[in-house]
């Protein structure tokens, strides 16, 4: 601020502007600029992570798709990358992945929706305040622990009810995964329901609606896109979940949707390959990245739909 005429400057010869020395102000302005740039750099770095992911997945998938035609990749129903007569039908892995995720959703949708309605429309604030942290605790349990539980507790338990159930199967990890995504789906849909304006509810009550009717005919339709977003994002989590299936679903790539048999999901396959000593640059190594690319695209699709619905929902309220 050298343009300030000297008349402002204090009598005691030290150049002061509003009580601050000019040297200090110069230093302050310098750090102000530096900080702004550093913070921007940090935020921009997060974009580099995405770029890195896309780069790695594509770079290592390209040599794979040079050897395996896309049509075979998408239509073959066998996945035997390390066999002499190697097959690369990714739908084998996708079918198991979707089966597990489907079972998880079959648990999480009714349970999550019921819990969300209960918390948002029925529970008093005190109970709600107590339950939400509990859900967070449930969300914090490491997934390896859930995998252990699915393999060594739940499967034996289910086997007493369903005699034909294999030791490795898709049912137990699916059920456990449903419980795993329950806290997330319940709390996101509860947020959506609670952001429905009170006025809409009051309109329902004024017509003589019961709570249930208000929930079913007023709140849920109004919050539908938010609730859908919750379950799509939950589905995305189930598809990408790794340790539960790697431990409890087995590692046999079987095409099909039978929940009683074991089958390798995309994530389980990646873990299985990573455990062995993969020669860098081999087709098996590259197949891991091709499978990863498919996984990334599926979850990206779900995430984008979920974010879109959520954003649209937020714009309404």
């Amino acid at each position, binding site marked *: 601020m050298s343009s300030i005429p000297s008349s402002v400057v204090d009598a005691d010869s030290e150049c002061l502007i509003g009580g601050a020395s000019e040297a200090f102000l110069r230093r302050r302005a310098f750090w102000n600029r530096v900080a702004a740039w550093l913070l921007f750099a940090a935020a921009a770095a997060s974009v580099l992570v995405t770029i890195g992911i896309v780069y790695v997945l594509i770079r290592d998938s390209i040599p794979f798709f040079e050897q395996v035609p896309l049509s075979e990749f998408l239509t073959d129903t066998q996945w035997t990358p390390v066999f002499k007569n190697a097959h690369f039908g990714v739908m084998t892995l996708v079918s198991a992945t979707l089966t597990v995720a489907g079972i998880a959703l079959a648990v999480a949708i009714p349970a999550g929706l019921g819990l969300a*309605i209960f918390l948002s429309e*029925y529970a008093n604030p005190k109970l709600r305040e107590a339950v939400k942290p509990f859900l967070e605790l449930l969300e914090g*349990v490491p997934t390896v622990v859930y995998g252990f539980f699915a393999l060594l507790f739940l499967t034996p338990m289910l086997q007493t009810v369903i005699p034909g159930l294999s030791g490795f199967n898709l049912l137990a990890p699916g059920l456990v995964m449903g419980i795993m995504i329950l806290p997330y789906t319940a709390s996101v849909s509860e947020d959506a329901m609670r952001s429905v304006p009170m006025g809409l509810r009051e309109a329902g009550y004024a017509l003589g609606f019961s709570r249930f009717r208000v929930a079913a005919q007023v709140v849920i339709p109004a919050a539908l896109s938010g609730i859908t977003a919750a379950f799509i994002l939950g589905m995305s989590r189930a598809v990408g979940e790794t340790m539960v299936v790697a431990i409890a679903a087995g590692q046999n790539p079987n095409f099909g949707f039978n929940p009683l048999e074991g089958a390798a999901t995309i994530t389980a396959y990646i873990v299985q390959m990573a455990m062995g000593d993969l020669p860098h640059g081999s087709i098996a190594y590259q197949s891991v990245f091709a499978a990863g690319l498919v996984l990334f695209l599926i979850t990206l699709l779900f995430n984008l739909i979920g974010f879109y619905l959520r954003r649209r929902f937020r714009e309404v309220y």
Partner: protein
Amino acid sequence: MATSSLANAQIESARIVAVNRRADLLMASIGILVLAIATLLLASVFVGLLASGWDRLINPDFYTHFPSRHPQQAGIISAIVGSSLVMLVTAVIAIPLGVAAGLYLEEYAPKNWLTDLIEINVSNLAGVPSIIYGLLALGLFVYAFSLGETILTAGLTLALLILPVIIVATREAVRSIPLELREAAYGLGADKWQVVRMYVLPAARPGIFTGVIVGLARAIGEAAPLITIGALTFIAFLPSPPVQATPPFVNFDWLTSPFTAMPIQLFNWVSRPQAEFHVNAAATGVVLMVMTLAMNALAIYVRLRLRRLHR
């Protein structure tokens, strides 16, 4: 005529009230049932692990021994040390990066396409499966950067994984700071960085702390990305310690050391056919669960106290 229609109406409304009451009762019991099942599940997971792993848990050797071919002698010392060192790297990288990015998005970012891009990117990163971060690390850190299957690689990978958690927590914490505080600070003549550094950041500290703890709790239980980068499971030595008695007192050799971590150790043991190893796995599961639950509980406690303070 008029009286009978009135009576009918009364009967009808009584019927509706009864139906309504039944529906409400049903909904409330569904909610409570789901809660009860979830509680029961959490309890049974924990108690089940505790019961299966009890013998190893009460044995001090379990915490001081290296993994072994003999299940009764196997311990988790290398996993504990490995997990701790990996967390150290993760925290050192993820906290400054995440807090800085969160501050930028909340305090600095202008409204333009670049900001939109960064925001969409962060929310998308939060939904990328953890194993994809493992592939990123395998393709980039392990091979392209030749960092190998080391503590540094693992710490970096998990740091990227929890970055969105810390960014989102920072943004929420910063957003909840009242306008008056900023106005008071600006009114004193503070410039932006002074306001952020001297007022916004200290006020947001508890909220950021909560996010950091939740993020680290997630990272410490995460196995998939570490397996993907090729973490070993049989580590019968400890990395060189980060501090030493002779100058320069700190030592960074441990960064390039191979490692194992608790979730990987658990996965290894649970994947073995012998039931004796499952006991070790259960015991490791208890340790891991206690750690993550304690961290999450701490985060919840801090947030609840914070909320009470704000009221």
